């Protein structure tokens, strides 16, 4: 109170000024920074738009149902991507069945049960962070050495490819799931435990369900990235000319990125058109998955 009064009485109160006291240099620098940032966004967008437009223009003549319902052929006008789409879906199915349960399980262990101070858990933590950054071709080598050949000797079949992609997305799924679990406030688990639930009951019936939207979003994004991968599949020996859909886990297969890679490298320009059309289909699948992920997040994510 007293300080307030003395301030009012004081005749030396400085006049209020709301104009900027910063010089032209600061303002220019701010402007330049903003320009640079906006520029980078625009470059990114421009590249994406150019890619889509270019593929659309080039692939337009072949962008029809026949493309999707036909199998590869030596004649570009007859060639289609049915076996590639099915191959991709088979792999996605394997990834969903293998990587998601293991990834979510690992995340639950690390977030809710592991002793975070223990050296081995910190070690695992660092390993997983690093694995998420390992180039996909390295996973291809891993799959080739341990799954396709080596001890398991599965051969270049759809199971090998699905498992290899599972390894590829596993670290990303674990990290996304851990984040989703961490976003559930600890008060939820405390509340469950205070009602006489065991830790497992509290985690499995309250924390995990609350984290599922986040886990699903992260997992879908990880899988949608994986279905565009060509490198590990090439290494595994995915065949490029398959005129049938996979019939089982040990079926030979092809996949969309493989098919595209094959067509692009052909001299016949007709196949380039087919490749462009296939790129559009692949982009559509990826965008659709991302859209589902975003919808899931907006629809179900809990604000605490």
């Amino acid at each position: 109170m007293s300080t307030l009064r003395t301030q009012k009485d004081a005749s030396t109160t400085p006049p209020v000024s709301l104009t900027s006291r910063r010089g032209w240099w600061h303002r220019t620098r701010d402007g330049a920074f903003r320009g640079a940032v906006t520029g980078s966004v625009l470059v990114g967008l421009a590249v994406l738009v150019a890619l889509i437009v270019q593929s659309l223009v080039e692939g337009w003549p072949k962008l029809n149902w026949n493309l999707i319902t036909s199998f590869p052929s030596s004649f570009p006008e007859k060639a289609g991507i049915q076996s590639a789409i099915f191959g991709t879906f088979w792999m996605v199915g394997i990834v969903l069945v293998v990587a998601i349960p293991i990834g979510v399980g690992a995340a639950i262990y690390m977030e809710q049960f592991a002793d975070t101070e223990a050296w081995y858990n910190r070690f695992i933590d660092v390993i997983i962070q690093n694995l998420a950054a390992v180039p996909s071709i390295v996973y291809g080598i891993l799959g080739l050495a341990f799954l396709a050949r080596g001890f398991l000797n599965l051969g270049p079949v759809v199971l090998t490819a699905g498992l290899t992609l599972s390894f590829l997305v596993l670290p990303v799924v674990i990290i996304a799931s851990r984040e989703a679990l961490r976003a559930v406030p600890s008060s939820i688990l405390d509340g469950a435990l205070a009602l006489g639930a065991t830790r497992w009951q509290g985690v499995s019936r309250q924390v995990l369900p609350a984290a599922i939207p986040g886990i699903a979003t992260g997992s879908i994004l990880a899988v949608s990235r994986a279905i565009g991968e060509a490198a590990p599949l090439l290494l595994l020996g995915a065949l490029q000319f398959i005129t049938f859909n996979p019939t089982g886990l040990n079926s030979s297969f092809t996949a969309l990125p493989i098919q595209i890679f094959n067509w692009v490298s052909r001299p016949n320009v007709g196949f380039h058109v087919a490749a462009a059309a296939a790129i559009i289909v692949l982009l559509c699948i990826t965008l659709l998955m991302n859209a589902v992920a975003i919808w899931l997040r907006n629809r179900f994510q809990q604000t605490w």
Partner: protein
Amino acid sequence: MIERPMSENRGAVVMDEPERTREGSSDAGVAPEAGADAVLQESAKLAEVTRERRRQVKKDADAETVFELKDVAVTYGGSYAVQGVSMSIRKNEITALIGPSGCGKTTVLRCLNRTNDLIQGAKVHGQVLYHDIDLYGPKVEPVEVRRRIGMVFQKPNPFPKSIYDNVAFGPRVGGFKGNMDELVERSLRRAALWDEVKRDLKASAMALSGGQQQRLCIARCIAVEPDVILMDEPCSALDPVSTLRIEELMDELVSEYTIIIVTHNMQQAARVSDRTGFFTVAEGQDEKDHRIGILVEYDLTPTVFTNPSDPRTEAYVTGRFG
């Protein structure tokens, strides 16, 4: 956990001060806020009548002891948070724990249902007897303890599910076999929430108001049919009207349960409790000049507020703390 700095707590005490002096009695069940409407005051008066009646009855019967704390101390990672707490808590009474922030009220409360076990590095020393059983004995199962000794938290923490599922969760994990609909209704009625939510039990608990959420948490706790309800500043996130409802609720529940409530609102302790324990922090007790919480005084609430035996208690309850 967010800890309020000491100065902030002092601020809260000072703010409460005019109200108490205005009424001239520390134990009066007055409306908690100046300018509260007539309804609020009316219900406050009604609540006060029931409370008086209850206290009359209480004085005759010598209640049995539920908790016996014997020289309890708690360490976090080796350093003492609270020390030398001995008190006995009686059945069907409301026991209030008051004191400045950081004096270990929550810590002591968490000893009573073994939730301190969940904190890495926390260790309980001394003895906590629950109906003459050592709570920290070798054969005691913490999950079983928590089933009998429920807890309501400072911030309402409903599960992000339907109202029904919130109440049904405890009984479900406890293996309840009876009629769940009936149990849910009964619990919501006892928590004075039924009339507000009965139309749509499938509605999300997150859509309820803060006060309703807290009553839902109480209903959820009651549904397990515990013996004791621990409440850690259950009204600190609520408006005065909701606070009053919770206080009335405690008053009704105490006929069936033993309630222990932590509060830093002294008016609340004075209004609702039968006994009050006053904690404070003793400075520089050990070699590291570490601040340790201690129990200064534990007595019948009117005694603590009108005739305390320790000068520190008197300073605190009259707002001259510090």
